[in-house]
């Protein structure tokens, strides 16, 4: 087995699993590949130890987290209120749309009527 083939598999078995017998034999007699395996194992051990080294959280984050249940309760309360009264809210919204639509239609009709009468007056004046 060649060093390049062995080194390609080292990242996998350095963390989990077992190398093949041929790989184990190669590593036993190759100081370069043994060193490479050792490097990976040390690196993985360092990675594992990071879990027990938490970084400092920003100031104020803990206070925000403590407020979460209160804030979430408020949001949940509003949500459940809306979902319980969904029909009433939908009816209200539909009525609002209808009123606004009717008002718009009335306005449009009045505008059309007044511009029509202006056109008629202009036409009469022109013929006279």
């Amino acid at each position, binding site marked *: 087995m060649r060093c390049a083939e062995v080194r390609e598999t080292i990242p996998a078995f350095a963390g989990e699993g077992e190398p093949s017998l041929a790989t184990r034999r190669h590593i036993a007699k190759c100081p370069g590949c043994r060193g490479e395996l050792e490097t990976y194992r040390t*690196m993985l051990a360092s990675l594992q130890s990071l879990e027990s080294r938490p970084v400092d959280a920003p100031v104020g984050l803990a206070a925000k987290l403590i407020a979460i249940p209160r804030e*979430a309760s408020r949001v949940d309360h509003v949500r459940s209120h809306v979902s319980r009264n969904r029909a009433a809210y939908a009816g209200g919204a539909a009525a609002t749309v209808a009123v606004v639509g009717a008002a718009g239609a009335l306005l449009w009709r009045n505008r059309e009527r007044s511009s029509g009468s202006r056109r008629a007056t202009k036409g009469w004046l022109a013929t006279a």
Partner: protein
Amino acid sequence: MEATHREVYSLCLRILRDPDDAAEATQDAYLKAWRALGAFRGDAMFTTWMYRVAANSAISKQRKRKRKREHEVGTDDDVMSQLPSTASTEALAGARIELEAVESALQLLPEHYRAALVLRDVYGMSMDEVAKQLKITETAAKVRVHRGRKKLKELVTMEQDE
């Protein structure tokens, strides 16, 4: 909450790199956890369960961020293009690896490798769990972890060389 928030924030920061994003992901994780407390069966440690919820929040945030800042994708490639060739790092095999060097090299890894490595090698999640969190197949998760370790080793040895 007081007992675990530093660990949860650290996990989010190690995945996201940005302190503001990590703080947001932490808040999101605790909100989800608070709402899903009923689903916590108690057969696993609370911290382990919390790590899963936090990883989920951080990875969702990472995905949203990626979609939002597509133009920044090149940043990771720039970092990788600065790496020395494998041949030159091989000479450093067996070098002592400093914890700080590993921590800072982890921050230089491209996002997809970093998330896989943080979940698998820092927080000890199973490949199956890593795959679920990243929404990829178990084989793809293994490939990411494998390549991530190789890139990390290159970065670590490069840093120690400087």
